């Protein structure tokens, strides 16, 4: 009976060519990357980013840009949990963003609760809203899911403009400038850059934990093939809801932080499809869809590029930043599906293959 592979389980460990194929029971623990083994790299990346902040700590413009880049790094990482790992193409994340923003602002303004504490109910409420909205919609796939979530944004905008007591209606809502750590209001830009770096760090660590867990694998299984996922005992709906809840909770926190930073916003601004809903997805794609560091890298490229374009061309060509971004989006979809991270990986493989052994 010629049966090399099948027989190997019973072959003596010393048999030729079977050195790395010893019997199942004698094998040592397999080389799987865990959260703990991946943590040093994440901390190194975060350390480098802190170094960047330190380097530019005197430059207000750069600090502002960095703060925005970190905010979007976090938001896009959060989107990536359900959009990248889970493959559920949500265009409605600005709704959860706005829920977080209004929860934080209202608790602070009306109940005097410190924004630091209000972020917790903001996250919870965003997750709850996300679950309630997506529960029925998760029956839809691909573009139809995207359309439905896009419609959520529209409904939320109408409601936001209507519910003046919570959102200030079309006139918007503003938070008075009262300095203080407890109020999360600072004069210097460095504090905001650090605040947003903290948010990006939180999101990165959550993403890493999800990716290196059963949930992360289940999300990817659902993305790749729902039928196979079900046959493997995965409750597809529950996995999608869990991914969505986590993603929305982080997005809600981001919304709260954003509102406390800008201190004035109306529903149209918070629920803007281009400025938030789509941008989360766009950054993730450009960085690397469904990768751990992609959204972070994407934000560090896209946001500074945008702020540079706005500064250079904003007055001359209105919408110049969005023109460039949309070109990047189309080109990335056509030629760089795995984003910056994917391209770097490919370069790395080519480079290492070229080196003679």
């Amino acid at each position, binding site marked *: 009976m010629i049966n090399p592979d099948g027989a190997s389980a019973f072959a003596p460990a010393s048999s030729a060519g079977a050195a790395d194929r010893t019997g199942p029971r004698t094998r040592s623990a397999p080389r799987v990357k865990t959260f703990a083994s991946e943590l040093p790299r994440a901390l190194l990346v975060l350390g480098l980013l802190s170094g960047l902040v330190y380097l530019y700590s005197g430059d207000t413009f750069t600090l502002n840009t960095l703060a925005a880049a970190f905010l979007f790094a976090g938001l896009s990482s959060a989107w990536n949990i359900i959009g990248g790992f889970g493959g559920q193409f949500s265009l409605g994340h600005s709704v959860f963003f706005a829920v977080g923003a209004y929860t934080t602002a209202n608790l602070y303004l009306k109940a005097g609760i410190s924004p630091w504490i209000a972020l917790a109910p903001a996250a919870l409420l965003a997750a709850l809203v996300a679950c309630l909205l997506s529960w029925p919609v998760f029956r839809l796939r691909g573009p139809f899911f995207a359309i439905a979530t896009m419609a959520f944004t529209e409904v939320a905008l109408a409601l936001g403009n209507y519910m003046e007591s919570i959102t200030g209606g079309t006139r918007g809502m503003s938070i008075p400038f009262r300095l203080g750590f407890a109020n999360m209001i600072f004069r210097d830009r460095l504090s905001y850059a650090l605040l947003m770096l903290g948010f990006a760090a939180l999101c990165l660590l959550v993403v890493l934990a999800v990716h290196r867990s059963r949930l992360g694998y289940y999300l990817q299984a659902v993305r790749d093939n729902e039928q196979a996922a079900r046959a*493997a005992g995965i409750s597809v709906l529950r996995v999608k809801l869990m991914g969505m809840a986590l993603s929305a909770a982080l997005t809600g926190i981001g919304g709260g932080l954003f509102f406390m930073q800008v201190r004035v916003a109306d529903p149209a601004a918070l629920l803007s499809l281009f400025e938030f809903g789509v941008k989360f997805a766009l950054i993730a794609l450009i960085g690397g869809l469904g990768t751990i560091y992609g959204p972070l890298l994407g934000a560090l490229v896209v946001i500074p590029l945008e702020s540079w374009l706005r500064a250079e061309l904003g007055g001359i060509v209105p919408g110049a930043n969005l023109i460039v971004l949309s070109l990047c989006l189309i080109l990335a979809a056509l030629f760089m599906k795995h984003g910056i991270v994917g391209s770097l990986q490919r370069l790395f493989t080519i480079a290492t293959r070229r080196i003679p052994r």
Partner: protein
Amino acid sequence: MSGALLQVRGVAKRFGGLVAVNDVSFDVARGELVSIIGPNGAGKTTLFNLLTGQLAPSAGQVLFDVQDISALSPNRRAQLGLGRTFQISQTLTSLSVVENVMVGAFLHHRGLKDAARRAEEVLHLVGLADRADVRAGILTLSERRRLEVARALALDPQIVLLDEVMAGLNPNEVQEVVSLVERLHAEGHTFLVIEHNLKVVRRFSERVIVIERGAKLAEGTAEDVLADPRVVEAYIGRKRAT
């Protein structure tokens, strides 16, 4: 036979006017290896889908471990111990081979390391250990088939349903899969196998069920069934024609 692991009670499936499965009943006891044969389009895959929950039966019941599972979702049935492969492999193409199997192993091994360890064991069993870190999307057909079997086995199922796992494999590969199934069967695993290769069926099956036009045509030992003139006419005659 009321204690059999899997009891199929008069299941039927209609697609509009087409009756794909028509009042099929049989049992599979723990530790058995039962084959299902029948011409293409007879309704074998549809029957599997009724057993594992991808489709809801139009009539009839499926009992597993004396529990009626007819209304349960596919994932609930997998959790209870029904593992299966698909005729058209359903590979998780963006994950690596070992990660594909881990997705199955997670059912009973929550931790990442435990699941990975279990997955590697199973990969050894099916002879894919040296491909563990390859992206599953680039596997050959025969490797994909074995990967499907591995993912099903990683569920630690009480019964495994294999849908034409040998189709499209060369004789050597068929030999490998056959001895894998025989070995696992000898270890006490229960199998229900859809198979076209009659040589294979004759070799391993204690019991063969013949499905034709959605209905059960015959059931019995391989010798008896394959000698039955009705089966020869329906199955072999038809097969030669296609």
